C-alpha cells in the first residue's frame, strides 16, 4: 500500500513539475521578453549564403505552391540556392520541380531512384546536404509556405557564433478545413507562440522543429547530418546541437505556414511517429543531457522535461488508474483532494499537445478570439494522444526486447488545402 501511495505521489509530483513549467512559460510569453534583436539591423551586414533543402516524396499537389513562392523571397538571389530532393516519387513531383529549375537558375533538383531513395526524410536531407554549398542550410517541407522575408529573419541570428541553428514559427494554413485542423492550429499556437518563445526567452532549449529552420553548414556536417534511424530527426538534432555546445534560437517573427493533417487517422499516424521518435530520443540522449558540461543546469532540466514529454500522457493515465485504486481500496482524505486536482494537472501536463494555458495565452497574444472557444475540445486530442503514446511505448519496448526496428518512416500526405 505504501508503494502505491508513494508511486501516486511521485506521479502527481511529475505532473506538478510540468504544470509549473507550462504556467511559467505562459507568464514568460506574456510578461517577459529577453528582446530578440531586430533582424533588419543584422541583415544589413550579415547575409550569408543560404541553401534551402526541400525533401519531397509524392508531393505534386503542394510542391508547386512552395516553388512558386521561392522567387518571391526577398533574400538576394545570388546568395540563395534551392535544392529539391525528389525522393523516388512516383507522381509528378520531380517533373514540377524540373520545370522550376529550368526557369530559375538557383533552383536545382536531385532525383533519387526507387532503389536508393524513399527511405525517409533524413536520407533525403543528407543527400541534399552533400549537393548544396550554402553556409547556412535551411530545410522546408514541401507543404510549407514561407513569409517572403523569412530567410533574412532567420539567418540574422547566425551573427552570434554560439547560435548553431534557428527555428521559425509554424502556423496552420488550412485551419478552417476540419475540427482536427482547428485543434492542431490551437496546439501550434500554444506550442510555438508560447512554449518555444518562452524557452528562447528563458535561455532554455528551444526545439528545432524539422522544418522552417536552419543550421550552420559546418555544424551539421560536424554532427554527421540527419540520422536516418531516428524517427524524430528534428528532436535528435536539437539535442545533438546543444550537446555540441551550440544553441538554437527561436524566431517568433519568422512565420511559415503548414498544411495540417485533416482527419484523425492521419493525426494518429503523424503523432505516433512523433511519439516514437521522441521516445527514441529520450533513450538516446537523456543520460548525455544529464551529464553534459555544455549545458547549464536549467537547460538540463528543461531538456529532460522536453525529452519526456511524450511519456506524460501515459503517466497521466497511470495516475488515474492508481488514483482510482487508492480511492476505492485505501481512501484517505488527502487522496480525495489529490483526485480533485488531477483533471487540472492532466490538462496542464501534455507538453506539445498544447495545454490549455498555453493555447489560451497564445491565442490571446495573437488576438484570436473564436479559436479559444475550441479549448474545451482539447481533451479529445489529449485522450487520443494517450492512446497514441501507449502504443508508441509498447512499440519501443517491443523493439528493445526483440531488437527489431520499431517503426519505419510513415509519410504524412498533403492535398494542397488552405488556398
Amino acid at each position, binding site marked *: 500500500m505504501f508503494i502505491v501511495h508513494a508511486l501516486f505521489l511521485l506521479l502527481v509530483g511529475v505532473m506538478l513539475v510540468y504544470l509549473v513549467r507550462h504556467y511559467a512559460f505562459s507568464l514568460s510569453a506574456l510578461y517577459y521578453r529577453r528582446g530578440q534583436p531586430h533582424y533588419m539591423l543584422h541583415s544589413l551586414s550579415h547575409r550569408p549564403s543560404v541553401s534551402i533543402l526541400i525533401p519531397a516524396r509524392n508531393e505534386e499537389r503542394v510542391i508547386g505552391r512552395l516553388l512558386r513562392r521561392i522567387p518571391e523571397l526577398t533574400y538576394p538571389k545570388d546568395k540563395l540556392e534551392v535544392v529539391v530532393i525528389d525522393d523516388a516519387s512516383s507522381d509528378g513531383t520531380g517533373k514540377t520541380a524540373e520545370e522550376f529549375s529550368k526557369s530559375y537558375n538557383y533552383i536545382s533538383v536531385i532525383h533519387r531512384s526507387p532503389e536508393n531513395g524513399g527511405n525517409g526524410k533524413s536520407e533525403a536531407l543528407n543527400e541534399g546536404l552533400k549537393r548544396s554549398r550554402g553556409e547556412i542550410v535551411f530545410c522546408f517541407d514541401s507543404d510549407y509556405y514561407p513569409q517572403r522575408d523569412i530567410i533574412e529573419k532567420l539567418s540574422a541570428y547566425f551573427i552570434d557564433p554560439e547560435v548553431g541553428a534557428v527555428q521559425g514559427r509554424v502556423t496552420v494554413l488550412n485551419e478552417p478545413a476540419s475540427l482536427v485542423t482547428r485543434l492542431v492550429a490551437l496546439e501550434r499556437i500554444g506550442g510555438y507562440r508560447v512554449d518555444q518563445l518562452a524557452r528562447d526567452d528563458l535561455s532554455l532549449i528551444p526545439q528545432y522543429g524539422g522544418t522552417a529552420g536552419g543550421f550552420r553548414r559546418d555544424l551539421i556536417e560536424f554532427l554527421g547530418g540527419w540520422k536516418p534511424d531516428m524517427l524524430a530527426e528534428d528532436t535528435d538534432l536539437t539535442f545533438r546541437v546543444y550537446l555540441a555546445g551550440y544553441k538554437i534560437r527561436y524566431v517568433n517573427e519568422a512565420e511559415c505556414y503548414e498544411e495540417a493533417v485533416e482527419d484523425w487517422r492521419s493525426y494518429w499516424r503523424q503523432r505516433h511517429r512523433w511519439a516514437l521518435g521522441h521516445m527514441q530520443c529520450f533513450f538516446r540522449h537523456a543520460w548525455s543531457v544529464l551529464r553534459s558540461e555544455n549545458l547549464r543546469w536549467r537547460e538540463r532540466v528543461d531538456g529532460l522535461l522536453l525529452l519526456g514529454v511524450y511519456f506524460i500522457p501515459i503517466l497521466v493515465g497511470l495516475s488515474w488508474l492508481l488514483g482510482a485504486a487508492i480511492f476505492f481500496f485505501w481512501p484517505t482524505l488527502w487522496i480525495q*483532494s489529490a483526485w480533485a486536482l488531477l483533471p487540472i494537472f492532466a490538462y496542464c501536463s501534455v507538453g506539445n499537445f498544447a495545454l490549455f494555458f498555453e493555447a*489560451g495565452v497564445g491565442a490571446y497574444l495573437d488576438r484570436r478570439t473564436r479559436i479559444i472557444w475550441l479549448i474545451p475540445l482539447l481533451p479529445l486530442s489529449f485522450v487520443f494522444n494517450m492512446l497514441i503514446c501507449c502504443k508508441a511505448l509498447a512499440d519501443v519496448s517491443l523493439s528493445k526486447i526483440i531488437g527489431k526496428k520499431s517503426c519505419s518512416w510513415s509519410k504524412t500526405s498533403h492535398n494542397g488545402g488552405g488556398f
Partner: protein
Amino acid sequence: MSLRPQSLQSSSFPQRERPQLLHLMVGVAIVAFLAYLSVHLFQFLLHEALVQVLSVGQIPVVKLWTPEGLMLNVRTLVGTDAQIALTPQYSGLLSIIIFSLLFVFLTFPLRGPLWCKILWLSLGNGVGLAWSLLRLSVGALVAYHFGCEAFAVASFITGPVVDFLWTVPVWSLGLSFVISTERKRIEAN
C-alpha cells in the same frame, strides 16, 4: 473559407504585456471573499438546495450537522441509511476555489475591462455551484437506489468529468469575452 497567403501574417503583438496588477489584487480579494463564502455560505446553500431537490424527487433525506461538518442522511430503497458528507472535494467547492484561483491568476492580469473579468469570475462560480448541485443530486440518487458504496463510485466518476465539463469551458469563454471586449474598446477609441 480560403486564406490568402499574402495576408497570413499573424497578428502577434511583439511587445510584452504589462500585467494589470490592480486587477489582480482586486481579483485576489474577490477570490478570498468567495472562498470565505464557500466555507460559510455556499456549503449551507448547497446542503439546503440538495435537500430541496431530493425532496422534490421524494427521496427521504435528513439534514445532519456533525462535528465533521454537514452531512446528509439518505434512506435507501433497501431500508438502510447512507450518510453523505459534504466535504469540500465531494461537494465540488474545492473545484470552484481552484477555478477561481486559475481564473484570477490567468485572466485578471491580462488587458481587458475589470467588470468583464469579475462578471466571468462570478458566472464561473455560479456555474460551478450549479454543477456541484447536479453532481451531488446524482450521487444522492445513486446512493438511494444502490447504497453508499455506489455513491463513492458515482462521485469518483462524475467528479473529474464534471470538472472537465465546466472549469475549462467557462475559463475559455471568459478569456474569449475579455479579448473581444478589449478589442471593441480599442476599435471604438
